């Protein structure tokens, strides 16, 4: 097993765990934690492909991941703000009870 394969395996595992969390958790905050996990799995992939890629001297992989982390932070802020707004409106963060997105 090469280091790249090990990294990809870890990131796939991380993604699967995140997806499962996001799908199964009733609490919106925990679903958001799952989404963050999936994002981090993607970041790990970027780092792994850069580090074991043909040109590890250029810092392009690092750059993308830092941007991605910044965006993830902003997105988490927006997500949490949404959850607060939803909580204020519905007095709950249980995703099963929030069904108003249907037409």
């Amino acid at each position: 097993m090469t280091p790249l394969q090990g990294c990809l395996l870890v990131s796939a595992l991380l993604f699967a765990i995140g997806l499962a969390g996001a799908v199964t958790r009733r609490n919106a905050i925990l679903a958001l934690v799952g989404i963050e996990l999936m994002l981090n799995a993607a970041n790990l992939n970027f780092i792994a492909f850069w580090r074991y890629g043909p040109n590890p001297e250029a810092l392009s992989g690092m750059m993308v991941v830092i941007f991605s982390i910044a965006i993830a932070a902003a997105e988490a802020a927006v997500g949490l703000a949404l959850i607060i707004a939803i909580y204020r409106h519905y007095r709950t963060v249980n995703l099963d009870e929030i069904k108003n997105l249907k037409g």
Partner: protein
Amino acid sequence: MTWIAQNLWLIPVLPLAAAGVIAVNKQRQRKLAATLAIGSMAMAFLLSLCAFSATLLHRGDNGVFREVAGFNWLQFGGQWLHLDWVLDPLTAIMLVMVSFVSLLIFIFSVGYMAHDENFMRFFCFLSLFAAAMLGVVIANSLLLFFVCWELVGLTSYLLIGFWYHKPSAAAAAKKAFITTRIGDLGLLLGMVWLYAETGTLNFYANGSGCLEQSALAAMVTHMTAAGMAVSTAIGLLIFLGAVGKSGQLPLHVWLPDAMEGPTPVSALIHAATMVAAGVFLVARVYPLMSVHIEGAAAATTALTVVTWIGALTAIFAASIAVAQTDIKRILAYSTVSQLGYMMLGLGVGGVSVGMFHLITHAFFKALLFLGSGSVIHGCYEEQDIRKMGGLKKFMPVTFATYAIGMLALSGFPLFFSGFWSKDEILHAAHGWPVSHIPFYLGCAGALLTAFYMTRQVALVFFGSYRSSRREEAHSSPHAAHIKSEPPHVGSYEGNAVPRESPAVMTIPLIVLAVFAILLGFIGTPAWPWFDGFLNGEPAQFNFAKLTEGGTLSLMLASAVIVFTGLGLGWWLYGKRQRKTAEEPDVLQVAQPTLFRLLENKYFVDEFYETTVIRFNAWAAHGSDFLDRWIWGGAVLLVTWVTLGLSWLYRFTDDFVVNLGFDAGCETLREGGGEMSRWQNGRVQTYLRVIGVALVVLVLILMWGRKS
């Protein structure tokens, strides 16, 4: 301009207002209705007297006194239609006559109609009639004349059919209306033609009226296609209206049937005033009738026609009257005959001759009709003279006045108005240059008139009372009471003896009787005041005129004729009284065929029935057939085609267009429903789908790598 000429319109408007007020009041207010009607009529009479005295005062200033006033009615194109009224001697004398006779008949009606439940309606119609008739008299415009003329016809219709629950009355009303309408069509055509020729319908308008010199001169020289002067053609058309209204020969059939109306109506409308309107019309348009080219024969075509129609009607109707048995029907035929005399007088002698007879006739015929009304009222609604008899001792006042009326109508010499007026007509007819036949016809008519009136009076007032009711009443006092109680005789308690009428009915009779005698003296040959009054010349009192120019011999001849008629009638009917009501008439025994012919009025009604009416019925049937099958069929065909087409449209719409559209909609709706199940609003479900889709995608990619 005198104030009365200015305000002449008040005379017809007063009764009109009375009619209006009566019409809107409750049915029970009899007193109010009678007071209003009689009061307005009395006012109209007073105003008429004012008008009459005005014409008397201004007489002989310069020719005929004539004053015109009026108003603009409506504008059409650039012209105004003037409705004018005129005050001249002709109008004045007619006004006095109409309003006076109307007044007396109104008073009489209060008694005659006392028990009728439609008392209010009767007085409403009567007032309306008086208004229309006075309107006819004062009219200076042929249009106003025509309007009032038609109103008069309408009220005549309403009053003949007053007892409309009787089928015969309803039929008579319809007959009168339709028959006079035939004549009115002629009048209307004449009116339109006159307007086309002269551009005005006003009779007199300071030289521009249609009866004045300039218009007449234009019309007499203008020829129609048939070689007749326009004035003659128009005159004949207008005369057609007079023929219809005055019951002259071809159109006389409605007048005897009109006796179905209440007797005061017969007296007022169908004896004294309305039927005289036709004569008045001819007198009014006399200048048009008599205008002729300088140098031509004095008797114009129009006047010749008037004369012949009048003479034939006079003898024709008089002969029918001989064989009638209904007291009012005899008088009706007598009226037709006398109207014929008036036309004859107009034709041969001019306005004053015809009008004089009109005025005297109005009084004595109204008297006779009211007298017959009194007789009918007294005999419990019996109208058959065979069932009367001996009324002289039961109804003395009625008998005395009736006898005066009868003698006046017969033309009893010297003391009765009918003698003078009829004699004047015969005298004029004798001097007519065209033919002497009208004169002989007139003489024969006079003979018959005296004869049938004697017959009637002998049967009604002399002999013994022959009513079957009397025997019934005597044999069983209750039978008559139960069997035949007349509709409005309250005091008929098994006592069938005729009784005298109340004073409200006899007083008008007495007044009329006085006038029936006195009026003759205003137009005797010795003092032709009436003639002078109409022509605007002072009358000379001159006894010598009586003996001049064969007047005396003619008077003697007519006296002989009258005495012959009276004697013959008395000999046949007075001396030898019939014993029972069923006994055949003396004439019937002697001349059965002739009597049957006369009794059935020369079968004129039957003749019309088989010709005009049958033709009309055929035409109606033909039109009905055309309407029902040809035009109706065409319409039906179009309907069917339209129906079929619309059915086709509906089919296509329902089963082609709508069905396809519906199917598309349904599919879309179902698809939408199916899809909407996916959008359940749960975020995690969406995420789950994404996850599964990712797995599937990855599997596909891996599958693709392998192969």
